[in-house]
């Protein structure tokens, strides 16, 4: 009964390095999301996915790449990390993309880019 997990929970990297944040869910939810949380901004949607091999941009996609080869996994890659990408990243999943659907969030990954 793991639900939705994220790894690593904490990551420190340097400017210019590639970083991949992992997200795994055990519910077979169709939809998965990546958000970043910064003080004063709440949560902002980076990318989302409706199913395996179907992804779309959110509000702040620049500098990020996603893939979804399997329903249960939705990795987020920072191809060349910048200091402005220092943030807490949350993965979420939901059964559908309806106005009343519940999004279930993972515990987050705190990323620091030096």
């Amino acid at each position: 009964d793991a639900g939705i997990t994220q790894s690593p929970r904490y990551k420190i990297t340097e400017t210019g390095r590639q970083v991949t944040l992992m997200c795994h869910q055990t519910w077979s939810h169709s939809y998965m999301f990546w958000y970043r949380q910064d003080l004063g901004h709440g949560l902002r949607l980076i990318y989302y996915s409706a199913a395996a091999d179907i992804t779309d941009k959110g509000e702040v996609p620049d500098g990020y790449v996603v893939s979804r080869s399997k329903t249960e996994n939705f990795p987020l890659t920072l191809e060349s990390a910048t200091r402005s990408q220092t943030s807490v990243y949350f993965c979420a999943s939901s059964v559908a993309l309806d106005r009343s659907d519940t999004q279930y969030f993972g515990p987050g990954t705190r990323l620091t880019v030096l």
Partner: protein
Amino acid sequence: TQLLEQSPQFLSIQEGENLTVYCNSSSVFSSLQWYRQEPGEGPVLLVTVVTGGEVKKLKRLTFQFGDARKDSSLHITAAQPGDTGLYLCAGAGVGSYGKLTFGQGTILTVHP
């Protein structure tokens, strides 16, 4: 881009007091959700309101969706230390289905 303005950003009160958090926008939303987040964890859904004027109660928490579906409020009666946390409102724009726009959040601290 739809914006949700949440206020206040910080709220520090004594146990037993009442409080209200507001979430306002100039845009119409098809639904409004409230989440609570504790340190080191992801947000957890408290409630979803979908009809203008709708009121939902969850124990000491009362949620209201504005008649025009542009604003919402969360009222807590007789706050307890266990209510301490970050409260987030999130709206699903008309036509954007479940893609959510979040407010900035309200950090609530309830002192014993």
